[in-house]
């Protein structure tokens, strides 16, 4: 054996362990997270605990575990298995999930015609479609074609629902924004003592116009809601109960036991797309995470825009212009130590300094008409981005300084010898060559900022934001608004939800998405850096 072999093995082992941990974690998140979107088989079975009446149960098997027999009196053998059944029908049974002891199950079947109805509220409903009603009159009751009629009615209800949402969110939202603008304009006039009757009359007229438009939309909405609730359907549960529900309450319905593999794949793709593009429902435990994705990406981009110039300028001064001595050394130590400060401390600082002090003053100076309702004097996107920019500043400064130190002296001298000043040399030669190092700093900053949650809870992230920070109402980018964030979403869904079993897969799926978003942000930065490196290679040695 060579003298160096154990050393090589040690190194390789360390790399291997890191890789196993990384891929193990990613694999776990991916499997659990993606499993959430795959349509499971629906089981119908008899269940007879000893000494009790026989029940019929229906639902999806979620998990199975082996339990020592001593836990359950009357069980023989060392262990027995029990399964977790997602039985849905929460409005009837009271519990979404139930543990079943496997030996007590019998007559397990997977009927092809059992349907899963995903409700807008109250979770899933498992049952057999019985009939479809229009305005209370049964129009079809036969089993064969009922499904087709139901699907058609469901599509119609979905279209109406989308229209309603569009009107509520977009059109009425725009009117409300405009009304608020008018209110503020009027208040501003009052505050400045300006009582120009012409202008006031104009505002009143505009307001009346808007109110009329609002009224018209409301009438339209009433009609739409009537149309939405026209149809209903009845379904029979596995226990034989017949339940009538409006079709508008259903988001999606499918017959999982009858789906082919390709159908399941298509279903899976639709569910993934819905998860990424939809708004959350039922206190974030259902639906999608679109606002959280937008919030995370917006916040990271804003943070990058703020931290890069600031950090690069600071690094240039420290490295190129400042007289090197104990002062610069002390500043460097301080900057490096900043990177080790707990992120929560930044959050508290952000809340105290940015939100209350800076934001409070901005409100007094520029948004006095809105007071006492705060505009910037409350947590929001801008403050979150600035706080995280502060948090990641040391990384950018250190990386940029190292990049500047790596530029060969000979290249600087070459430029100076041609009559360039120090500033010209910096701008034309040194900075372009140091740009890959700046990108490295930015990559590290993005990686840190995108995963950070604790400080954000104080300076702008909320469980459910009323709107996106980017929308169609002037000024389009709302820096003062609160926003949703994937990291906080994971915390909120995972630990603040009433039913752990419902949200567990959602936590995995959101975590997977967060990893994917960070990876996408990072990979684009890495691609830019590699491009720059390619341009300036050969000179780093």
């Amino acid at each position: 054996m060579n003298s160096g072999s154990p050393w090589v093995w040690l190194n390789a082992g360390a790399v291997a362990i890191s890789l196993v941990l990384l891929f193990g974690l990613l694999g776990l998140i991916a499997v659990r997270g993606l499993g959430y979107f795959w349509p499971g088989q629906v089981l119908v079975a008899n269940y007879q605990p000893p000494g009790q009446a026989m029940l019929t149960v229906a639902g999806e098997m979620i998990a199975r575990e082996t339990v020592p027999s001593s836990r359950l009196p009357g069980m023989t053998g060392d262990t027995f298995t029990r399964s977790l059944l997602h039985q849905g029908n929460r409005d009837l049974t009271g519990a979404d999930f139930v543990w079943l002891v496997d030996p007590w199950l019998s007559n397990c079947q997977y009927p092809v015609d059992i349907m899963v109805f995903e409700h807008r509220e109250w979770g899933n409903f498992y049952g057999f479609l019985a009939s479809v009603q229009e305005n209370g009159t049964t129009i079809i009751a036969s089993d064969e074609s009922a499904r087709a009629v139901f699907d058609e009615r469901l599509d119609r209800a979905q279209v109406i629902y989308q229209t309603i949402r569009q009107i509520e969110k977009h059109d009425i939202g725009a009117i409300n924004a405009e009304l608020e603008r008018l209110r503020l304009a009027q208040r501003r006039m009052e505050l400045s003592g300006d009582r120009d009757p012409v202008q006031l009359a104009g505002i009143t007229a505009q307001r009346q116009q808007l109110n009329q438009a609002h009224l018209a939309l409301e009438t339209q909405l009433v009609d739409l809601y009537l149309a939405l609730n026209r149809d209903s359907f009845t379904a029979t549960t596995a226990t034989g109960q017949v339940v009538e529900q409006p079709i508008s309450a259903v988001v999606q319905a499918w017959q999982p036991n009858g789906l082919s593999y390709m159908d399941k794949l298509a279903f899976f793709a639709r569910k993934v797309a819905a998860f990424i593009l939809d708004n959350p429902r039922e206190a974030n435990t259902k639906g999608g995470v679109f606002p959280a994705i937008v919030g995370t990406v917006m916040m990271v981009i804003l943070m990058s825009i703020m931290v890069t110039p600031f950090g690069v300028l600071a690094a240039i001064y420290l490295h190129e212009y400042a007289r090197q001595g104990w002062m610069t050394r002390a500043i460097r130590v301080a900057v490096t130590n900043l990177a080790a400060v707990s992120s929560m401390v930044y959050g508290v600082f952000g809340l105290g300094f940015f939100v209350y002090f800076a934001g409070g003053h901005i409100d007094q100076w520029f948004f006095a008409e809105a007071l006492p309702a705060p505009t910037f004097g409350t947590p929001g996107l801008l403050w979150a981005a600035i706080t995280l920019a502060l948090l990641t500043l040391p990384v950018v400064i250190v990386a940029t300084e190292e990049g500047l130190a790596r530029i060969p002296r000979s290249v600087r001298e070459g430029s100076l010898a041609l009559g360039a000043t120090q500033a010209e040399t910096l701008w034309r030669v040194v900075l372009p060559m140091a740009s890959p190092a700046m990108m490295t700093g930015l990559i590290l900053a993005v990686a840190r900022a995108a995963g950070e949650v604790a400080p954000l809870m104080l300076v702008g992230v909320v469980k459910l934001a009323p709107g996106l920070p980017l929308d169609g109402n002037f000024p389009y980018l709302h820096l003062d608004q609160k926003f949703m964030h994937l990291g906080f979403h994971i915390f909120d869904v995972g630990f603040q939800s009433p039913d752990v079993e419902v949200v567990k897969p959602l936590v995995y799926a959101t975590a997977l998405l967060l990893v994917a978003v960070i990876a996408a942000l990072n990979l684009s930065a890495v691609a830019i850096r590699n491009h720059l490196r390619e341009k300036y290679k050969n000179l780093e040695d």
Partner: protein
Amino acid sequence: MPVKPYGDAVDSRSLDSRLTDSLTELLSGPATNAGERFRSAGHGRRALSLEQEPTCMAIAGLNLFYGQKQVLFDISMKIPRKRVTAFIGSSGCGKSTLLRSMNRMNDLVDGCRVDGQILLDDASGNGVNIYQKSVNVSDLRRRVGMVFQKPNPFPKSIYENVAYGLRIQGINKRRVLDEVVEWALKGAALWGEVKDRLHESALGLSGGQQQRLVIARTIAVEPEVLLLDEPASALDPISTLKIEELINELKARFTVVIVTHNMQEAAWVSDYTAFMYMGRLIEYGDTDTLFTNPREKQTEDYITGRYS
């Protein structure tokens, strides 16, 4: 008659035959009489006299310190206009430091202090001390250009490298730049090799080409003086020869000062040679005399290779 790769007024022989000469010299051991050898090889040179040359730069009583350590001791000499002046001497004798003080590149070194004067003559012959407070260092370096030991092209295209000095001066007119780039590259004997790939990265050139590019970049701003700090020491023999050829041509337009370790090179390219030892100027005179009939014992020892 073999093809002449570069128009050379001084030496009409082909590159190859001169290369062979150089190699023979290299193989025949330490040069005992380099000047003699070159002259006998046909390097005809008219008699030169330092006193009769017009002055371009004059160094007067120059002392230079790095912190507490004195590196140059009371150097006084005159650099003749449109001639090649070589500084020779063993490593650490201060010849590079002296060269770098001629366009104030030493300002970049922390703790460097200079007293004495270096006068740079303008066209009418009035000398201005370049260490005066009123002197703009950027302007000075534009007038006194410098080429370093290791080729240091910028990570830009060949074209942009040559145009760099002009762009710094605010000249951005395409037509002017095109003209100057072509002129400078021709002047540096590089045009033929790169004219089809002006917009490719300069980092793709060979070491010798890069060094000629750096020379082109320097002459593009039309300096009065060219300082060359061992310009060929990092290059292979053929590239070295090309650079040496080039220096011979450059002196028609520029005053050239070259630092070299290689005595053959000094003997071959320079008109005047200064020998330095331990920060002092030991002997300075026309190259032929210095190499064939040195005044000082130290000079003779050095050029005959008696210093290790």
